[in-house]
């Protein structure tokens, strides 16, 4: 049913720390790896080893530069489905294939019902949905619904593949409907933001902006001066004093 359910108390989602992400693309690769053999049809690629490869991916990492001059900084920007509370991709779906779960707010596609019209991808401001080139059905982030409730996996693996694999801990998974959860606390402490709030989608996923720069000391640092000023201690103090005596 593509009517949106009543807002769920549990709002599972991701918090992505833009201060930490180094753009290594590991989350992108592990997402593809897990989801090509998990929920729904495999995530196919067209012409994968050719001149113009094209395929369905559920997570992409952009790179931006923000600010100017010495203050400019590079920001790696992972982007996947934000599991919006007012998800336009759900209400536009003519078949009922696109739906938002009442119990935890995860937005999913029933691939047996999807006709591949692409209207949900048109309605998503974020580009979170991609058509599978082989299967002709819409693919999107499932929040690894087949991992997070999967008791066959060890507890530490019961998180989305992207979160599990992130080597810098830039991705966090949890219940953003619970103000006391770790992710909600993190969002409150760091001033987490919604992407394109003006589109009225009410995204569940939040992005933590880069921390403010530490105030820089304006005087140039001379490494040579530092070396000359240093007073040796321990072994080097003994060497120093011994050589002084010899000299």
């Amino acid at each position, binding site marked *: 049913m593509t009517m949106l359910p009543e807002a769920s108390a549990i709002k599972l989602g991701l918090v992505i720390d833009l201060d930490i992400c180094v753009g290594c693309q590991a989350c992108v690769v592990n997402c593809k790896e897990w989801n090509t053999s998990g929920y729904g049809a495999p995530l196919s690629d067209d012409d994968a080893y050719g001149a113009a490869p094209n*395929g369905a991916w559920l997570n992409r990492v952009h790179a931006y530069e923000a600010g*100017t001059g010495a203050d400019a900084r590079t920001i790696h920007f992972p982007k996947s489905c934000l599991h919006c509370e007012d998800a336009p991709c*759900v209400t536009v779906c003519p078949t009922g294939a696109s739906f938002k779960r009442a119990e935890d707010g995860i937005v999913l596609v029933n691939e047996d019902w999807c006709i591949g019209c692409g209207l949900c991808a048109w309605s998503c401001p*974020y580009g979170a949905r991609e058509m599978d080139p082989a299967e002709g059905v819409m693919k999107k982030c499932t929040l690894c619904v087949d991992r997070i409730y999967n008791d066959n996996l060890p507890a530490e693996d019961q998180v989305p593949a992207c979160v599990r694999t992130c080597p810098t801990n830039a991705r966090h998974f949890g219940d953003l409907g619970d103000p006391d959860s770790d992710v909600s606390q993190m969002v409150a402490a760091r001033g987490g933001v919604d992407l394109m709030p003006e589109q009225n989608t009410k995204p569940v996923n939040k992005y933590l902006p880069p921390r403010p720069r530490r105030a820089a000391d304006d005087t140039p640092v001379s490494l040579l001066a530092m070396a000359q000023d240093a007073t040796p201690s321990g072994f080097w103090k003994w060497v120093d004093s011994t050589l002084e005596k010899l000299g």
Partner: protein
Amino acid sequence: MRPAWSIIFFTSISGLGFGLAAWLVLGFVDLADPQHLLFVGMATMALIVSGLVSSTFHLGHPERAWRALTQWRSSWLSREGVLAVVALVAMALWGLYYTRHGMPPLWASGLIAVLMALTVYATSMIYASLRTVARWHHPLTPVCYLMFAASSGLMAVLWVLAVLGQPITAPLALAAMLAVASAWGIKIIWWQLAGAGGSGSSLATATGLGGLGPVRSIMPPHTSENYLQHEMGFVVARKHAAQLRVIALLVGGVLPMALLFSLAPVPLVLFIAVVAHMAGIFVERWLFFAEAKHSVTLYYGDTH
């Protein structure tokens, strides 16, 4: 947005079909001769059905298209499908009644005509309801669709009258000219107004990084074009937009009006007028998609 031929054909031909059907049920053509009723009715339905069928050509799974009739409570695409089916059935019933008892009461015919208009409205709302495409998300978008359905339908009525050897009254010819002129007039206003204020979204709001200063894309997330760019990053038309608008206006507006104004009601001339009007609508519809910019292109560094 990528202009898919199946969708351009669907929106313009089903618009023509429903426009013509609405004028027919309102009694603009005398269909007392059962053969005329059968011929004109079937041809009109064929137009509508061919439009609907072509809309399934771009689907990944056309065999499941019937499922699109189920979500009318939330989806304009679903509403369009349901309304189209109901309108077609109503039109067939109208024809059956006509063969037995002549022209149905005006309220019934009027209701069916309203159903046709609602179907075209639903088609337009598939696009106008999308907040992600600022140019489409405008109150005049449905007006454009309805006006073109009315004008092309009325042009087709004139041609049908000429083919059946029925008189074309001066007020009717004038009405057709007015319909064509005002359809293009609304379109010109739409070209000026729709999306002019932008979407309110920018790379700053898209990334939430605006507080740090200007944001620039420095590296795409993939090395070749993906589905999003293929589907929503279409830019070919924008540099030729001005010329194409003039072509649409000349072929779809000026030419059919000139043919109506200057020549006798010869079927061939009116047929050319209908075809010219439709050709203009095809160009207009192509531009409707090709010129539209989707908010996702912001992530790929689109700055305008």
